């Protein structure tokens, strides 16, 4: 039985501020907790409990603080060795504000843009209320609420330092017309339910920005070359595709496309590739309409021999070379982690500790090695940095080191895949302190991660891709309503829940 990590933790009385095993975002089978992850969990709980007593606050408040996160990172260093996280013993008792360079070179907080933020509108979870589910004796909490927009807003903005989010799409198409030809609107366009259809992402972005009174959210559009299909000719339905393209660009005003090549919402029996003819036609039509940002899921895939291989990033090479005016953001940095790997996942994914390579990340790296002139491909690190950081910090050093060495610090983009991982703050704190060892830097030519590099990865790179004026956006933040709500929330003792929404196996 699979349950959410947060539910498992609560049943066991655990409230660590960092998930102590990899949680699944439903793109791979959850892996068992390793012995070392259990050690990190035990140490964090022991030290956190003692530290909280020492400074006279509740354990819950302690674990929700930056001191709690520092304790968990110290526990990770202790268990794994190698000091992957630069964290001082004193940080267990005294929060330390991390200062960094702003875009204009002045000191200030990092400007964080999370380009991979998801939530569910709950429609897809209706099974919980079905008679079948009720008769099975499951303890059904209201997950629509738990994973809703409100939770999303709280965990992304009130419980973390994230300044802006890109609401990131998931596979799914919209129905366009009723049987009588009437144009469908909003929820009518996804009559069977959908997790994050384009219309909803746009609506949520607008709502967030209206609440805030400043630009806090951007959104993606899900339309892809295999969404509207002429089954009679087994070819793309170009008229329907263009109608939807115009709708998503002009009406929804999406900020990027989000493609999943290995999915098949139109039931064509196949997926597509970024470098195939239909995708190139789509790119050319999008170019005419002025949208030239492609966010593409690569990596995490399933076992289907028909579809699974289409998540391999090999198709990015030709597409990037052929379309130098487009930018291609490669989600998960193409970390493969297939659907069937378990405890031996590193072997299954051909991790080579001598070279630091692993599937399909190596394919993404090789594209740039073969084509140093490529300047329009950006590895994104959602469910990449956070997954590797808690699974194997040395592998994480390789993954991040290779991304930066190969594509450049100005081409690596921050994303988290939250809310699967709960509030993104633990990942933010981990990356603020994450460092590559001297040994690996010397052996592999990796550069040390400086605050200047962190600033780029955390937000400055995404700002360029999305056309965000960081200084203007940063100046607007203190006065906006979301900042004021956050201040009031913290003043009233608001605490991060440390609830991780992703899946793990029930022990």
């Amino acid at each position, binding site marked *: 039985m699979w349950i959410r990590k947060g539910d498992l933790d609560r049943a066991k009385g655990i409230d660590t501020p960092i998930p102590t095993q990899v949680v699944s975002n439903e793109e791979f089978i959850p892996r068992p907790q390793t012995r070392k992850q259990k050690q990190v969990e035990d140490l964090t709980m022991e030290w956190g409990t003692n530290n909280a007593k020492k400074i006279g606050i509740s354990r819950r408040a302690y674990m929700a603080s930056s001191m709690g996160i520092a304790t968990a990172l110290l526990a990770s260093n202790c268990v794994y060795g190698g000091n992957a996280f630069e964290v001082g013993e004193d940080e267990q008792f005294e929060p330390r504000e991390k200062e960094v360079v702003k875009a204009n070179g002045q000191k200030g907080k990092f400007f964080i843009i999370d380009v991979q933020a998801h939530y569910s509108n709950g429609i897809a979870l209706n099974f919980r209320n079905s008679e079948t589910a009720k008769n099975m004796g*499951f303890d059904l909490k209201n997950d629509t609420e738990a994973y809703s927009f409100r939770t999303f807003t709280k965990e992304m903005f009130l419980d973390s330092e994230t300044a802006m989010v890109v609401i990131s799409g998931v596979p799914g198409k919209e129905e366009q017309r009723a049987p009588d030809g009437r144009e469908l609107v909003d929820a009518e366009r996804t009559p069977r339910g959908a*997790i994050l259809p384009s219309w909803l992402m746009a609506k949520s972005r607008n709502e967030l920005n209206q609440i805030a009174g400043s630009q806090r959210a951007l959104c993606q559009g899900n339309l892809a070359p295999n969404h509207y299909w002429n089954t009679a000719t087994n070819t793309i339905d170009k008229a329907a595709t263009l109608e939807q393209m115009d709708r998503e660009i002009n009406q929804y005003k999406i900020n990027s496309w989000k493609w999943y090549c290995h999915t098949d*919402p139109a*039931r064509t029996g196949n997926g597509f590739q970024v470098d195939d003819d239909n995708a190139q036609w789509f790119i050319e039509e999008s170019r005419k309409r002025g949208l030239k940002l492609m966010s593409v899921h690569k990596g995490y895939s399933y076992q289907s*021999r028909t579809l699974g291989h289409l998540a391999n990033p090999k198709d990015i090479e030709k597409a990037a070379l052929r379309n130098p005016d487009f930018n291609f953001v490669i989600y998960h940095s193409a970390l493969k982690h297939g659907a069937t790997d378990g405890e031996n996942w590193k072997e299954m994914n051909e991790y080579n500790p001598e070279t630091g390579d692993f599937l399909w990340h190596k394919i993404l790296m090789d594209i740039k090695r073969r084509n140093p002139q490529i300047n329009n491909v950006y590895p994104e690190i959602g469910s990449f940095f956070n997954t590797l950081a808690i699974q194997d910090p040395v592998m994480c050093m390789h993954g991040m080191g290779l991304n930066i060495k190969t594509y450049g610090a100005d081409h690596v983009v921050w994303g988290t895949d939250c809310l699967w991982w709960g509030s993104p703050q633990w990942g933010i704190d981990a990356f603020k302190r994450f460092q590559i060892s001297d040994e690996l830097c010397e052996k592999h030519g990796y550069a040390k991660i400086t605050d200047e590099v962190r600033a780029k990865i955390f937000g400055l790179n995404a700002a360029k891709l999305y056309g965000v004026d960081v200084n203007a956006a940063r100046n607007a933040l203190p006065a906006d309503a979301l900042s004021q709500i956050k201040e009031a929330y913290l003043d009233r003792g608001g605490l991060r829940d440390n609830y991780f929404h992703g899946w793990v196996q029930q022990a």
Partner: protein
Amino acid sequence: MSEPSWNFEGEPPFELRTEAGINLCAYLDAMPDAKLKTYDPKMSDEQLMRWDDNFTDEGHLFLPCCESEEVEVDMYRRYLEACIVYRNRVRGSLMAEA
């Protein structure tokens, strides 16, 4: 004995094949034959979910990447029973090749 190379996924669809259906076929192709043979059609839905052991506490099969459709127990049972028919048909020849 090694597991034959099942290919239920490559069989002609027995019902309109969705993305979830394709992946469910692939999922069943990875299921050991010995386990499949222990399936009892008289199992209740709850027993079936426990038998598989890859359902979530929310009542759907944990099938990676199928975000547009949940595989609930009714769909799972239909595909499982079709897969059993497929395996009964090809088992002999595939075993002989293995």
